[in-house]
């Protein structure tokens, strides 16, 4: 039965015993400071003044409009068939835009993985595994979406799924061997060049925001 009254002996014992719960290691202040400085430096580079944000937003809308125009112009069958067939076409466009953002996130992630995984290997393995799992769930959603009907994109998504599964299961204890195998596999399957070629050229205003 729950007792609400104070019990100094229990509280004293509990305080002492609970010190072992999630006991922190010494603060890695230099490592964190370096990353804070890098993040703030990079943020300053892309930080926009209010009027610039409006300009970028306007440019993005213009680019999107041109993109929609070109894309629909290349789809004569979809646009002249029946009224019913235009709805899925528009919805597919939405998935394509989502796919472009997802591919940009994944490109940034895999690039970062390949270059950074060797540094602070154990900690990075955990971090990359976490990020890979996040992207993996999006990859599977993409495979099940209309974007996955495109054979070229589907093949790329399946390659990415394989790489992301491997990264998501990285074990810090066997990090060096596993990461070497993953990067070798990435090189052999040419997944990064394929990924880059699948991303449309031109600015994508929010391409990596929040991904890493």
């Amino acid at each position, binding site marked *: 039965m729950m007792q609400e009254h104070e019990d100094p002996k229990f509280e004293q014992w*509990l305080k002492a*015993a*609970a010190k072992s719960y999630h006991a922190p290691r010494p603060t890695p202040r230099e490592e964190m400071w370096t990353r804070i400085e890098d993040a703030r430096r990079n943020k300053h580079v892309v930080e926009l003044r209010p009027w610039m944000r409006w300009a970028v937003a306007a440019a993005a809308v213009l680019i999107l409009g041109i993109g929609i125009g070109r894309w629909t112009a290349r789809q004569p069958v979809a646009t002249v068939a029946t009224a019913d067939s235009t709805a899925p076409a528009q919805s597919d466009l939405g998935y394509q835009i989502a796919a472009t953002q997802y591919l940009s996130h994944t490109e940034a992630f895999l690039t970062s993985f390949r270059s950074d995984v060797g540094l602070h290997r154990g900690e990075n393995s955990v971090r990359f595994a976490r990020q890979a*799992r996040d992207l993996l769930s999006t990859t599977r959603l993409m495979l099940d979406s209309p974007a996955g009907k495109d054979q070229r994109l589907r093949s790329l998504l399946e390659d990415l799924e394989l790489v992301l599964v491997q990264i*998501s299961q990285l074990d810090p204890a066997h990090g060096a061997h596993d990461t070497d195998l993953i990067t070798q596999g990435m090189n052999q399957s040419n997944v990064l060049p394929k990924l880059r070629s699948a991303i449309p050229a031109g600015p994508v205003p929010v391409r990596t925001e929040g991904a890493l």
Partner: protein
Amino acid sequence: MDESQLIARVRAGDSAAERALYDTHVDRVYRLAFRLAGDDALAQDFTQETFIRAFDRLGSFRGDAAFSTWLHTITTTVVLNGLRKVKRFRQREADIDDAHDIGTPQRHAEPDLKVRLKQAIDDLPEGYRTVFLMHDVEGYTHEEIGAALGVETGTSKAQLSRARAKLRVALSDFAGEWVQ
């Protein structure tokens, strides 16, 4: 140099003052993040995010409360939101996430006190757990906790009392340890 002068120098763009402010507070922020997250990579992420936000928003710090109180408000927000995302993500990805154990309870029974205590703390409701760890483990006052979590001091005290009561029930097998 006192802290208000240090903050004024940070606002003026002095990077040495930024580092000094970071050095003054980073231990406590990291320790709290680690206690709540139970994972070094997450604790580092949360600590970095806390300082990045704090430096970016220093202009909005009016000095009505201590800087540490303001900073710990950011810390608890960053950590609790981050842990909620991790929890949601882990639920989604349960099929590939068997090997990891960050802030999630272990369901198998173990007679060991440390394991049982960990499980009991993990099983506390989020608010109780946060107040318990801040007060009984990291030594924050109820005033600091109330300010950081945006609750009344009385609420913090009540949550601590309920957390202890739940832990007492959960650990009743070990009563011999404290009833002597």
